[in-house]
């Protein structure tokens, strides 16, 4: 199991909050741990950030590529479209 984990580390700030909440809502298996200034989000197999879920929480249009402005680190294979940003490892 451990070799199939993916993770995303996001800055702990106001811009990243809606993204973190969207991940929390859309990925029931994700485990979020807080470090100083950083949130590390681990999940088995796949972790997805959906544009719609973020927009709903943000209150305006959001481009999944904007996640890179807040990304500290990641692990997994990236699958990126206009509608979502996902990390996978199978």
């Amino acid at each position, binding site marked *: 199991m451990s070799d199939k984990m993916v993770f995303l580390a996001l800055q702990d700030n*106001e811009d990243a*909050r*809606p993204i973190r909440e969207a991940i929390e809502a859309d990925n029931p298996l994700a485990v979020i741990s*807080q*470090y*100083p200034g950083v949130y590390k989000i681990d999940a088995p197999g796949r972790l997805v950030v959906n544009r719609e879920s973020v927009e709903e*929480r*943000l*209150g*305006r249009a959001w481009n999944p590529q904007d996640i890179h402005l807040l990304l500290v680190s990641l692990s997994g294979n990236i699958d990126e479209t206009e509608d979502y940003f996902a990390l996978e490892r199978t």
Partner: protein
Amino acid sequence: MQVDIKSLSIKPLRNTFDQVVRFTGSDKSASRYLEATIGVQPEVNFHYKPLWSKNRDLYDKENTLIVMSDWYRLLDPRQYYYGAWTIARSKQQDAAERNFSFVEKRNMLEAIPADLRDKIITTFLPLRHMEYAANLNNTYMSAYGYGVSITQAASMCAMDRLGIAQYITRIGLMLDGNSGDTLKTAKAAWQNSPAWQPMRELTENMLTTEDWFELFVAQNIVLDGLVYPLMYQSFGDLTSASGQTSFAMMTEFMSEWFDEHVRWTDNIIKVAAAESDSNKAQLGKWIQQWQPQILQALQPVAQQALGSAAQAGLDAAVAHLSARLNKVGIN
């Protein structure tokens, strides 16, 4: 010697303000919008009654017939607090400036045929006077309204209206080479032209409407809901169809702004109507009271703007508004 650098994680005892915790029901870190909104309304210790009414408090829930158990629930889905709003508007202004300078650089306005130019001056430019009334109306809502969620948004809306009036003015100034002649003609049309008098009378009646929520419905839902599709959509399409895309470029801010305005206003009446049946009935009553008047006042304006397509333009505007009202559960 060996130095160990250890990271120390300090867990905050509380993630947000107590008033936000009471509002959302959990101590999750909350958005800046909620933190800047919830709990800001002055509620107690009003030492003096206002001069304008001895039966009211300075901030009084009973200034309207609408009743809410928690006025903070009239939230803005755009999540605008002052900072977020100014940043969004400054980005839009950059885009609008680029459009205006593009139109100016290419002398696109000189290509507009004389009859369309006259139509823009006498039918579109007078909207700046209506926007000023909308500014006053929204300022009234923010002054007499209750619950910061709606009063702060009304106050920002009021400033947006001034901005829109300024953009309309700039279109006039670009048409007349900064002499201001078009604006004088447009003002004369607003004050004297028979086509504008029903609208001017209606606008002045709105300025004296006492119930601030009724004014919200009349101005921000019904009047805007009909005028914007008519002038920026149907009239905009008419100018584009005749090959004059400069008009659409210069009014892009207004179309974009209206989409956003719809999201805010729809959410307000949706939440207010869902609160109780009496609210819902009251909102429906206000809409039924204002919509026919506004539609009637718009008739001659639509006629002047769209000619034979006037009825189709008005029908499209009404359909747009009805679809919105159905969606939020009024009608």
